[in-house]
Every structure is written in structure tokens, then in C-alpha cells.
């Protein structure tokens, strides 16, 4: 057993920032991560970090833009905290040596970004995330913070009171990928989940293979609700074979989208008669999928993004990296042929339900980064707003977990008095694990309240047994098959276009996946670097997370932000200015809602038409 004050799970931008903050607050801190920190997906972020740094800009504008961008589903206290703290935290990165792009006078450069009223996106070349990740890892090395890398966190050690709000988290159980050893990590004051997004729930995503929503799933099963999971951002231009992102810059410079008949469909089919290719991300993504659905897609899969007419000189000058991406990952020369693109899952606005201090309803359990939902992004994330979320809320979670007083949070968490229950959800199948052999979650063992160590030991034992079970079984189904099926169903039915029928289909497939998972087995008999075992665990988590996405999408019958519903293509402020929350509830998920907080420190954000 290992023991620390604060255990941070995940070492992407949010995890690293949390660890540094906890360490600075005097806590003995450790990072437990399934990838070496510099391999985290934060490294893929290109665009930048929004921060109101300059004279003439101010945090209130940033907060306003964010609120509007969220389609009024962000909570004002969270949005305002983000906007207020981002400048200082961005500057701190600069002091830690982050190589931001510079102006002639030596100050950091900022550029305009979609949905921002002021050019406040601070960037470091086209690889802002890479520099952010590496700069913070350097600070972790400097501070000598303990890093357990290539340790896969399997579960949380949480007490088993009936009401999740009464539970306490005492640590995590992790598995050393290199040796197969399963160990308990005791956290004396807090566990912070910073495990990133759940993009692998979809088969086509800009997210890494490691973005499997592990933190979401283990927190969910431990009793913390997942919030606003239906809000998934899809990026219209990703490469079909890998999902690698082709930046909006191509369309910004004048790139044109064509269908297989060579028609400029954005105009010819009237998807966006004014802005064409430059319409907002969701509009373009829907247009592309409509083309494919109506048989005008190339190879029935994608459309073409053509930039050849811009001329070699201009392309080389402004879009050189795009040429490399197309060449390296798709084998296409953007100078002589159009590039294939299709919409890909990009970001999850929802996540583990937390307050401004990163705390969940479970004592001692925190979440930060893309895994968490504070909620800053509401229905739609603005470009450049995820990275500041990592540093601002990562820092707060770290401090709070280390015992610093950050004041009373205004945002509520968990199932409490302020919520409204969903009573009449018309579900095609029983979600959750009801009727199935349970594997994970909080085990009820008759309320024999053990001490922290006892609870940890018990969880370790349970995970050991689970692994033995998976490894001993010699036949059944392999996880890859289930995962592929799940991903396909999600992409087919809970994608950019969502219809009631489709989502129900997806829920049925998810149920099937769950049932099949009962027979899953790990073929690789080795304990050394058994990625088969790890991925089998991840697939289980994906099933749970995918289900919350589908459930949220099913109940939210309106069009808000990134969530589009065929049955109701309007934003419905009357009924839906509220967050969707789904809690595990012992394997029988419960759906409930919490009103959005639109009252800020000084002003209230009145919902307005989201038009740019």
C-alpha cells in the first residue's frame, strides 16, 4: 500500500496543475497516471488559452462570451471564476518558462478565436497544449512530486453509506501496467480525478486512444453524478482514417468543402447561405453528415476539403502544418488533391458533477479538467476555453484537496434538495447494471463500517478477484469486439444528428454490450504489460459513460449548444435551463436536473439568441 495526502489521478494539464497546487499548499502529493505525464492528451491541443490579459480587455467580457457560447447552460460562478483567474494562471505558466509566441515588444501574443469579443487567445505556436503540458511537467520534476506512471487506476475506495453525499473517498486502487501488481493508494486528504475526456465512446474522434472516460466511470459508480453528458462537441474537419484534427484555419483561409459531385454543398444545398464553410462547427458538421446520408459523400463516408485554389505560396506560408498532417496521417498531398474530412467527436462539455472547488458530492473526491463539469462550458465549449479550465480549476481542486480554505462554493453537487427528478423518461431498455452481475461501484457489505485502510484493502481485494476472473476465463468475447460495437452505435445514433429513435437504438446496443461484457475474457495470459487487461477495463468504463451520454441525449428534447434533436429543433429556455444529472444509484441509474445558475457576482446573464 502506498500512502499520500493527495492522490491525483491523471497527469494531463489538469492533473499536473492540481498536483503542483496541492504540493505548494504543503500536502504530500502523488500523481498516479496510466500514461507517462508527457503522453497525456493535453499535448494535442493546438489553438490556445483564453485569458483577458491586455488593457482594453477584461475578465467580464470573457465571462460574458463564455456564457453566451455555452448557450446559457454554464453556471455563472464557475464561468466568472474561470475568467477572473485565467489571466494570473496563464501568466504563471509564462513564469514557469512556457514558450508563448511573442510580440515585437516581448509581450505574449494573443489572437482572435471563434465566439470571442476580444482577441484573447494566448498561444504558443500551433502547439499550445504541448507546451502547456511539458512546462507543467517540468515544474513537477522541479518540485520532486512523486509520479507513479503507467499505473492504471481501476477503482476508488469509497465508504458505502446509502446516500452518496455521506460517502468518503479514502484512496484508489491501481494496477502497475509493467508488472501487473495491484496496489492500494491511500489518500489522507483527497483524491483528484483528472482523467480527461471520454472520446473513445465514439469510433471517430480527435481524442487519444487513452481517452476512455475512466475517471467518469469510477466516480459515477462510486456515487458522484455525471452532469450534462449529452453535450458533445463534434469538429467538422477531422481526417477520416485517424480522426486527426484539421484546424479551422483551412476554412478560415478560404478552403472549400465539396461533396462527391463536386458541389459546394454549404451553399448549393442551403445549409448556410451567408457564411458557407465558415458557419459554426455544429452547422458544418451536420451539413457534412447530411451529404453523406443522402448519398453525396465520397466513398459514402466523407467530404472533400479543398485548398488547392489558394495557391502553393499561400498554403506553404499559412497552412504548412496542414500539409504535413494530411501527408503523414492520410497519405494525401493537399497541394495536388483535396483532403478527405468528416466530423469527429472532439470534446465533452459534461463530466463529473463538481463545485468551483472541484469537489464532488463525495467527501474527499475531486475532479478537474475535461473529466469534470463545473460547469463552465454548458452546452458548447468555446475554442481556447478548455486549457484555462485545466489550470484554473486544476489549481483550485489541488488547493482545496490539500486543505486550503477557498470559501463556500455556490454550486451544489449531488442529489440534494435543489434537484428535480425525471419521472417519465421513456427508456427502451433498463439502463445500468440492474439484473446483471455487478462489477465495481460501491459494494454494500452490510455497512460494516471499516476504517480507511480496511476499505482500501477491501477494494484492492475486489479488484484482484475481478482481474483473476477476467484472466482465468478462457472463452467468451473479447473486449475489442464490444468496444467496436459500442463506438459504432454511438457514432451512428448519438452523433451530430440525434433522433429519439436513434438514441433508443443506441441504448439497446449499449444494453447488449453490457450483457456481452458479462462474458468478456482477457486472452493475454501474461501479467507483464497486459494492455489487453487494461483495455478490457476501459471498455467497461466506456459502456457506462456512453450510456450516460445517450440517456442525457434522450431526455433533453431541445436544441441547445452542440446538442441537436430532430423532434425539437429550438432552444427551449422555458423547460431546459437546467443541467442533466445522472447518478449510478446502485446500478439503476437515476436521472435528475439542477437549475442553471445565471446570477453572477454582479450581474445576471439573461439568455439571448446565440448568433454571431
Amino acid at each position, binding site marked *: 500500500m502506498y500512502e499520500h495526502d493527495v492522490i491525483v489521478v491523471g497527469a494531463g494539464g489538469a492533473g499536473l496543475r492540481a498536483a503542483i497546487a496541492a504540493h505548494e499548499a504543503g500536502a504530500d502529493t502523488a500523481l498516479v497516471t496510466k*500514461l*507517462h505525464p*508527457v*503522453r*497525456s*492528451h493535453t*499535448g*494535442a491541443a493546438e489553438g490556445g488559452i483564453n485569458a483577458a*490579459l491586455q488593457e482594453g480587455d477584461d475578465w467580464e467580457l470573457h465571462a460574458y462570451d463564455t456564457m453566451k457560447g455555452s448557450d446559457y447552460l454554464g453556471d455563472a460562478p464557475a464561468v466568472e471564476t474561470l475568467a477572473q483567474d485565467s489571466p*494570473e*494562471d496563464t*501568466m*504563471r505558466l*509564462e*513564469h*514557469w*518558462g512556457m*514558450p*508563448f*509566441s*511573442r*510580440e*515585437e*515588444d*516581448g509581450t*505574449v501574443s494573443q489572437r482572435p478565436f471563434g465566439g470571442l469579443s476580444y482577441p484573447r487567445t494566448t498561444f504558443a505556436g500551433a*502547439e499550445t497544449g*504541448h507546451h502547456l503540458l511539458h512546462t507543467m511537467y517540468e*515544474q513537477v*520534476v*522541479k518540485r520532486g512530486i512523486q509520479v507513479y506512471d503507467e499505473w492504471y487506476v481501476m477503482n476508488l475506495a469509497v465508504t458505502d453509506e446509502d446516500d452518496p453525499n455521506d460517502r468518503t473517498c479514502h484512496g484508489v486502487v491501481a494496477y502497475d501496467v*509493467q508488472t501487473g501488481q495491484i496496489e492500494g493508494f491511500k489518500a489522507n486528504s483527497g483524491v483528484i480525478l483528472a482523467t480527461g475526456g471520454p472520446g473513445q465512446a465514439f469510433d471517430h474522434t480527435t481524442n*487519444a*486512444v*487513452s481517452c476512455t472516460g475512466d475517471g467518469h466511470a469510477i466516480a459515477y459508480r462510486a456515487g458522484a453524478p455525471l452532469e450534462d453528458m449529452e453535450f458533445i462537441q463534434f469538429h467538422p474537419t477531422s481526417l477520416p*482514417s*485517424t*480522426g*486527426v484534427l484539421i484546424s479551422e484555419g483551412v476554412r478560415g483561409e478560404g478552403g472549400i468543402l465539396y461533396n462527391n459531385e463536386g458541389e459546394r454543398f454549404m451553399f448549393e444545398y442551403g445549409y448556410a447561405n451567408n457564411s458557407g464553410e465558415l458557419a459554426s462547427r455544429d452547422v458544418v458538421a451536420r451539413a457534412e453528415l447530411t451529404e453523406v446520408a443522402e448519398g453525396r459523400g465520397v466513398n459514402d463516408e466523407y467530404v472533400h476539403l479543398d485548398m488547392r485554389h489558394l495557391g502553393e505560396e499561400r498554403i506553404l506560408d499559412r497552412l504548412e502544418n496542414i500539409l504535413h*498532417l494530411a501527408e*503523414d*496521417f*492520410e*497519405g*494525401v498531398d493537399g497541394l495536388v488533391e483535396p483532403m478527405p474530412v468528416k466530423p469527429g467527436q472532439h470534446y465533452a462539455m459534461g463530466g463529473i458533477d463538481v463545485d468551483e472547488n472541484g469537489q464532488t458530492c463525495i467527501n474527499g473526491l475531486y475532479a478537474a479538467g475535461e473529466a469534470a463539469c463545473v460547469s463552465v462550458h454548458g452546452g458548447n465549449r468555446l475554442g481556447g476555453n478548455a486549457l484555462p479550465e485545466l489550470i484554473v480549476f486544476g489549481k483550485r481542486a489541488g488547493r482545496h484537496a490539500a486543505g486550503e480554505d477557498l470559501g463556500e462554493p455556490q454550486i451544489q453537487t449531488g442529489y440534494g434538495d435543489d434537484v428535480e427528478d425525471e419521472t417519465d423518461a421513456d427508456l427502451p431498455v433498463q439502463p445500468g447494471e440492474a439484473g446483471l452481475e455487478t462489477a465495481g461501484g460501491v459494494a454494500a457489505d452490510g455497512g460494516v463500517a471499516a476504517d480507511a485502510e480496511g476499505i482500501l484493502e477491501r477494494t484492492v481485494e475486489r479488484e484482484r478477484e475481478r482481474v483473476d476472473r477476467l484472466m*482465468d476465463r*478462457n472463452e467468451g468475447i473479447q*473486449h*475489442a469486439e464490444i468496444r*467496436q460495437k459500442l463506438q459504432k452505435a454511438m457514432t451512428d445514433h448519438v452523433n451530430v444528428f440525434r433522433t429519439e429513435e436513434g438514441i433508443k437504438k443506441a441504448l439497446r446496443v449499449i444494453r447488449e454490450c453490457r450483457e456481452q461484457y458479462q462474458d468478456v475474457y482477457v*486472452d*493475454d*495470459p*501474461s*501479467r*507483464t*504489460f*497486459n*494492455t*489487453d487487461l487494461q483495455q478490457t477495463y476501459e471498455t467497461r468504463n466506456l459502456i457506462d459513460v456512453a450510456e450516460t451520454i445517450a440517456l442525457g441525449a434522450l431526455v433533453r428534447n431541445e436544441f441547445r449548444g452542440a446538442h441537436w434533436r430532430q423532434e425539437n429543433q429550438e432552444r427551449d429556455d422555458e423547460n431546459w435551463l437546467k443541467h442533466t444529472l445522472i447518478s449510478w444509484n446502485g446500478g439503476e441509474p437515476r436521472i435528475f436536473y439542477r437549475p442553471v445558475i445565471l446570477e453572477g457576482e454582479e450581474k445576471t446573464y439573461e439568455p439571448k439568441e446565440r448568433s454571431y
Partner: protein
Amino acid sequence: MSTQQQEPESQEAPADPEMKGTQSPQERRLEEKEAGLDAQAEADAEAEGETVHIKVFRYDPEVEAKQEPRFDDFHVPFEKGMTVLDAVMYARDEFDSSLTFRHSCRQAVCGSDAFFVNGRQKLGCKTQLADLEQPIRIEPLPHQEVVKDLVVDMDHFYDQMHAVEPYFQDEDTPDPADLEEQRQSPENREKIKMSSRCIWCGACMSSCNIAAGDNEYLGPAAINKAYKFAMDDRESEEIKEHRLRILEQEHGVWRCQTQFSCTEVCPKDIPLTEHIQELKREAVKKNLKFW
């Protein structure tokens, strides 16, 4: 559709009672898999069009049939744009789930999947199958110990990276709350730009003969990391000197014999040799001052 070329002794491995339950099911599985795969191989070969032939290095200290390293053959259906990583992922998901390798981002930013492909250190996700001669031989990075299949032990690489004190050291920076920044000229930022792109993939270190022979040699990646800091004007002169002292230790920059293979294999096109040479000159210049 792999035709696994197993060592003969593994096929006739007797059920050793001392190996308890683990061995016989494992053997059974392997046999079953092989039978199944052969059938599948034929079926696929008829149905599918073009395939790519890859030979993948296999080793696992715990699995008897893999204790003696071997190469397994896989024939993976080819699609335009497919990369080496796609091929091994396909082989893992469809043929043999025990095939093990590190990977994550699939877009050349996480640095997990540097392999030795047809005799060259390459990032799996950034290497198009179409550009390679078949059969494509995929091995773990040379000069590092193999943990399993394509996974090598990276600890030494990380130790070397950490050894150059890779972090900003100036303590008396302005208070971030005042939004006061350390000025840096665009030229200076340009100078360190390439060096800051390293994704810690280890390809360079693996390709360097000197690093192979001298375990203490810092290696191109660590030196490049140090370059990024040493050349950054935001750090003070004293700290730069301190950094040069680390670099000019016996196993520092001087060990580099300008073999250039690091520069050639770096997937991020970092001019490593150039950076190392510049640091050698800096170190000499600094020492000359004291003569």
C-alpha cells in the same frame, strides 16, 4: 491472419504440473488461436483485396512460447492512408489481443509509439505503410531493454531527461497577479522553437551509437532539452552557466560524435546535432574566458 512462427519447442511444450493451472489453458488458447487464425486467414485472403505483410517482434518473459524472441507474421488489409500504428492496432484487435505496444494520440504528439521499422526509428502513427518495403519488420527500439513485444523500458531515457534539470530555475520572477511578464524577443523565442518541440519519443537516443555504448551519455534528447533552457533569454546568465556546467561534464556534449542519426530520425525534425554542436561551442567559449 497471422501464421505465427513459433519456436518448435513451444508447440510440444508438455503440460508441466508445476506450472499449475496457468499453463495448460494458456497452451490451449494458443493452439486454438492458431487454428482459428489459419481458417480466418484463408477466408480473408479470398474476400479481401490488398493486404500488407508485417513481421512483428514478439517477446514476453512470462509466456513460454514468447520467452525466446520471435517474429510473428500478420497480413493486414490495406487502406489508403494507413499507418504502421494502424496496422499493429488492426493486428491486435482482429488477430492477437496479446500484441503489446504503447500508443495513444495517433497524431505524433504523445511520443509513445516509436518503433524500429525496417531498420529505422520511426513513429508508428506518422509512418505510412505505402512508403515501406514489404514485409515490414516492426521491432522495439534498439538499445533499450524490451519489456514485452514492442514495449521497451524508457526509465533510462527519462532519467537522462531529468538529469539536465529541465525546468525554469529563476525564482525572482515578477508576481503573476500583476500580469507582469518576463519579456522575450520574438527572435529568442524563434531560436528555442525547434528545441521545444520534443515529444520524448526516444527515437534519437535509440539511434545513437554513442548512447548505446556509453550509458551515462546524456543523449541527444536531454541535451536538446537543456538547449531549450540554456538559450532562453528569460533565464539569467548565472543559470545559463550552471546549465553549461551540467552539459560539459564528461558524459555530456563531448560524447557526441556528430553521427547525425538522431537528427535524421527525429519525427519532429529537431536539428539535434546542430543544437549539440552549438552547446559545445558555448561551453568552450565560456571556458576560454577563464584562461
